[in-house]
């Protein structure tokens, strides 16, 4: 821990907060850009994909969303290499611009009805660009802040970067809600959904000008002036066993588990409420938004705490709590929203515009609409249930803050300056982009499969193989986090490392 170098100590507090502010703002915008696609997945599926099979269209949208995650490791390699060769500052300026252009362009692509199959193909390509940019952004921002920080406050300083992913998701939900509330449902469906994508261009320009005036990281500058930067960061990171073993350890012992917990707590929770529990679209956004807002401060708290007690115990405690409580939490969410558990106020049942409206004793309202012979039900839960759901999501956000708050400092401390950007970006983006990013698609598929298997078994013999098919999707994060927990517990060291 005794690494308070002259380079770091020269960075005064005011400059440090500027560094944190500018880095966090850019990263926040990139997360916003990345997540509006996911937050608008249901709308996008109807705009860019063939309308004849809504389930296949939704799964294709999730797959396109997931494609953005899958290319993140490639972005990490490409931009990480640049960051270790030419510097952190210029690299994350480029990633910011690429992300902004791709997001804005998604908002301008004509729909499937206008240009046919070209629409999903163009959207997929733009989504891939978004993923590449994000792959380069995070490692740069985390490294940049960490290399400016005092060693004893590195967890605290970098935790501000960690808040940006959640804030980005929160702002994406907020902008969508604001846009929706400022126009009719028809207008939003027709063109209004494009607005959140287009707004990104303004935010990116502002952030670009702020970042442009920042200095290069002092540690990188020093290494460069002494001729100590790597000439081939990729080969040094992954071709040399000494470094590569730490890349694997970072992936399997930390980021893999952290990734699935992040995406379960913030994204799968949203998907579960909307697609499995059939809770009203707007209301789910409010529920998730409330939980995110209440939980985000804990990123900073756990980042700060990791400076005192070490990164490892906090991250592993978050993983363990998630593994043990996911099933009870999601079971409770399902039962809270299941109207068959509620008492219907029969005298208040009515018809409105072809839909049957049912009111329940806890204030929940179910709307039953017949879509081409298939009855579809959405539920708007009562106030008490709303707060119970927000609390259950908040608990998951708390787990997210435990595993995610300290991880930037943890990763930065694992690798030396000369290959840091490359080496830390890859495990981070495989853990989050691949294991985490694929979670909504894989978990939704597992639930759909379990429900279909039960339906077939019910028709055949009456005995259903899945007791609670709606919880089938949770096996994916539970198993992945379980393996990561054991590897982390045995192989990770708790001592916070010198970053120089």
């Amino acid at each position: 821990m005794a690494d308070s170098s002259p380079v770091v100590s020269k960075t005064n507090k005011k400059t440090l907060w500027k560094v944190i502010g500018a880095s966090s703002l850019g990263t926040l915008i990139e997360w916003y850009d990345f997540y509006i696609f996911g937050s608008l997945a249901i709308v996008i599926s109807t705009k860019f994909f063939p309308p004849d099979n809504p389930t296949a269209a939704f799964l294709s949208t999730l797959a396109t969303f997931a494609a953005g995650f899958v290319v993140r490791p490639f972005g990490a390699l490409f931009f990480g290499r640049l960051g270790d060769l030419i510097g952190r500052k210029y690299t994350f300026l480029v990633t910011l611009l690429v992300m902004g252009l791709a997001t804005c362009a998604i908002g301008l692509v004509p729909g499937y009805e206008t240009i046919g199959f070209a629409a999903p193909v163009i959207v997929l390509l733009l989504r891939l660009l978004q993923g590449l940019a994000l792959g380069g952004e995070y490692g740069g921002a985390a490294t940049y802040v960490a290399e400016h920080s005092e060693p004893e406050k590195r967890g605290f300083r970098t935790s501000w970067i960690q808040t940006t992913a959640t804030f980005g998701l929160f702002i994406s939900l907020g902008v969508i809600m604001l846009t929706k509330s400022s126009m009719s449902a028809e207008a939003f469906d027709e063109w209004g959904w494009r607005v959140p994508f287009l707004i990104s261009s303004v935010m990116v320009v502002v952030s670009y000008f702020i970042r442009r005036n920042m200095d290069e990281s002092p540690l990188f500058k020093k290494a460069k002036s002494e001729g100590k930067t790597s000439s081939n960061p990729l080969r040094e990171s992954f071709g040399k066993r000494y470094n590569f073993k730490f890349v694997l350890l970072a992936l399997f012992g930390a980021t893999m588990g952290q990734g699935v917990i992040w995406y379960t707590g913030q994204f799968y929770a949203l998907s579960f409420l909307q697609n499995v529990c059939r809770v009203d679209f707007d209301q789910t956004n409010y529920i998730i938004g409330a939980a995110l807002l209440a939980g985000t401060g804990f990123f900073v708290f756990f980042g700060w705490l990791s400076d005192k007690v070490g990164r490892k115990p906090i991250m592993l405690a978050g993983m363990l709590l998630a593994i043990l409580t996911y099933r009870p939490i999601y079971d409770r969410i399902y039962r809270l929203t299941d109207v068959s558990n509620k008492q219907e106020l029969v005298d208040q049942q009515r018809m409105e515009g072809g839909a049957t409206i049912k009111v329940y004793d806890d204030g929940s309202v179910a709307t039953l609409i017949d879509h081409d012979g298939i009855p579809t039900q959405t539920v708007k839960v009562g106030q008490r249930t709303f707060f119970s759901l927000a609390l259950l999501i908040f608990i998951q956000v708390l787990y997210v803050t435990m595993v995610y708050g300290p991880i930037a400092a943890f990763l930065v401390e694992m690798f030396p300056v000369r290959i840091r950007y490359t080496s830390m970006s890859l495990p981070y983006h495989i853990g989050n982009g691949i294991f985490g990013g694929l979670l909504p698609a894989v978990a939704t598929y597992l639930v759909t499969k379990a429900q279909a298997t039960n339906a077939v078994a019910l028709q055949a013999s009456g005995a259903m193989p899945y007791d609670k098919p709606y919880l089938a999707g949770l096996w994916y994060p539970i198993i992945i986090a379980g393996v990561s927990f054991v590897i982390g517990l045995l192989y990770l060291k708790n001592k916070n490392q010198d970053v120089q």
Partner: protein
Amino acid sequence: MNTIKRLLGALWIMLGLAAGYYLIVSQAIPQFSSGKSEDLVPAIIYTFILMPIITGGLCIFGWYALRGEYDDN
């Protein structure tokens, strides 16, 4: 502790192989042959993304652990 870390190296290798077998034989092959469009996406994810990372990564990680690369000293 170092002995446990090394012995568990074999477990990670076996876990990687078992996960690969499960993802391909139990999941991807039946999904590819089901003919349903909604099965295609997870089959591709399992075969070309998750399986190489989990199987390849865990096997190399396990091999390093077995050789004592992660020993405390």
